[in-house]
């Protein structure tokens, strides 16, 4: 297998970044997030998870769409979409990779979101198996195998080496072109690691949730469950869960007045916000309970109903960790998901 000694990883990063832009998990001011490699990054591939998910690459928090240039009474329309060239995202975990599939079903079906498509197609994704999954992880419930994270190239961190397993042609093309890699015999070690990971995952507290209730046919019943009140009681209505979530895909389109006209851009929105979806000037979901219910019903019921039973949750556990008041999807699943929870 192609591999590189872990203490030589900088060589790898440098070589890739010479070919194209490279993004990897970087620690800055105590928070881990994907950052463009500039030679100074404090790269951290040991820690499990970035705060923001990898969806940002295809669906950034803000993105320009079109510019209107005004002069006197004249208006000129300028396409503001960025030209994207091939780039590498390094260190994506299995859950985040799975989230791309969920987002694709939203953005790549007709009418295709060209901005998303542009960014998605030009990305080469190096995934990374999860050596140390966290107690808040529950990806297993959604058919995700953290020991086989998929992507263009799977990476395994074992025995002081990082091993590479290209899965696609564009992945192989990059891996084969890297001169810093050496051929190391590692299949056994990787297999052992995979087994170890699978074992660890099995033992996690949330690995076997009962999702059986979340079916389209139960929609109205679930919607009317009285437990939503207490589940959402402490919700602050902030957007933390939505913004760290790898599958949340709502956005708002806004105009910004520049000195020469108007910039029309889109930016993330959160269904948890009171000013979300101002239909006829008002949010139809007036209470925080309704908004809270919307988010989880969408993840666990509405989306799967429209997408062959695929849940739009990947069990990454970000909302579990980051909710200011410790409300999260696991608590929802356990409360109303099925009898076998608890």
């Amino acid at each position: 297998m192609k591999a590189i000694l872990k203490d030589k990883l900088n060589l790898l990063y440098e070589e890739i970044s010479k070919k194209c832009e490279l993004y990897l998990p970087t620690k800055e001011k105590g928070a881990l997030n994907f950052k463009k490699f500039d030679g100074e990054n404090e790269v951290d591939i040991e820690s499990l998870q970035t705060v923001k998910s990898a969806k940002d690459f295809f669906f950034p928090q803000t993105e320009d769409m079109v510019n209107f240039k005004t002069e006197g009474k004249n208006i000129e329309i300028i396409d503001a979409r960025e030209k994207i060239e091939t780039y590498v995202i390094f260190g994506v975990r299995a859950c985040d990779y799975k989230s791309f599939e969920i987002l694709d079903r939203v953005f790549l079906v007709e009418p295709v979101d060209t901005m998303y498509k542009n960014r998605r197609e030009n990305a080469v994704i190096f995934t990374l198996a999860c050596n140390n999954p966290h107690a808040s992880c529950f990806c297993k419930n959604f058919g995700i195998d953290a020991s086989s994270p998929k992507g263009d190239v799977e990476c395994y961190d074992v025995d002081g080496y990082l091993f590479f397993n290209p899965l696609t042609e564009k992945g192989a093309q990059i891996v084969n072109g890297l001169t810093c890699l050496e051929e190391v015999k590692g299949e056994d070690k990787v297999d052992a690691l995979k087994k170890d990971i699978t074992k660890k995952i099995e033992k996690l507290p949330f690995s076997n949730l009962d999702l059986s209730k979340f079916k389209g046919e139960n929609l109205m019943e679930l919607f009317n469950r009285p437990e939503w009140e207490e589940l959402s009681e402490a919700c602050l209505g902030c957007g933390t869960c939505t913004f760290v979530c790898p599958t949340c895909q709502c956005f708002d389109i806004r105009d910004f007045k520049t000195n020469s006209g108007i910039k029309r851009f889109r930016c993330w929105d959160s269904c948890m916000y009171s000013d979300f979806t101002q239909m006829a000037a008002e949010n139809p979901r007036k209470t925080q309970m309704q908004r809270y219910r919307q988010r989880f019903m969408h993840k666990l019921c509405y989306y799967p109903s429209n997408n062959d039973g695929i849940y739009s949750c990947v069990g990454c556990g970000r909302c579990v960790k980051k909710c200011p008041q410790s409300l999260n999807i696991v608590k929802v699943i356990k409360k109303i998901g099925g009898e076998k929870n608890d």
Partner: protein
Amino acid sequence: MQRLENAVLSKAKELLESGKVSRVLGWTKGEFCYDVSPCVFNTVDELKNFVYNGFCGANLSKYLINESKKEGKIAVFLKPCDTYSYNQLVKEHRIKVENVYAVGVECQGKFDIEKFYAKGVGFVASVEEGLTEVKVNGETVLNRNDVKLERCLVCNKKHVAGEEIVELNEKLPSDSDRFEMVKKLEAMTADERFAFWKKELSKCIRCNACRNVCPACNCTKCVFDNPNSEVSAKANATSFEEQMFHIIRAFHVAGRCTDCGECSRVCPQNIPLHLLNRKFISDIDKLYGEYQAGEDTTSKGPLTSFTKEDAEPSDAVGGNK
């Protein structure tokens, strides 16, 4: 600390049973010992999930804005720092006091779960709390100060509101200076400060957790959500918007911020937001005399009062150049 939890719980029971209150605002158990959530308990039976431990950092006072408007009296448990927020909300007529029975609860500082992870504890299954030490998972003994939230390390707040107090041990004082980091920043050069804040603020994802958790940020509609304010936005499109959001957020609570530290506790990106609020507090103390928001329910705040001899803005800007 189990004893303290029991004492708080029996107070909750007593208040519900006696009919003194019809609801109790406290904290409820989560899946683990550390993911507790604020919760309203309506019956004694519901209290089986009641919890009061070192992870009950959430400030409950803000929930009273809505809860106190409902029918019947509600009891609320307030840590010393929360009582200041409570007073401030009362001062601003946001809480209907006649519907609230406030009970102060002992607090020896609350935990920051990330600090356990940083100490090498991968999974926190249980924490036995002592006054100065904690035992994690029945084995690892850690210094309590090493796993406390930043705000608790510098806290010397006392209960300033509440009909009664549930306290088994006196609160251990802190000798740390809460303005230490503010002073450090002030001593830096402007370039260094700029670099520091640029990195910190660039992490902001505009999730509004800091704003929504803040008891002082209790506007019916925030300027940043109001399309008529000309500054509304749902994301920071540029670094300017990061700066503006945080300057204005801190400015709007200047003189009203009690330094409860919730903003920093909830920030998913660990931005030290309290350093902005504390800068204002420190400036107010220096320029207009020491002022602790929430210490009482009647005094005029420093930005709604003045003296004829106040410093000029040109003289008020301190710090290094």
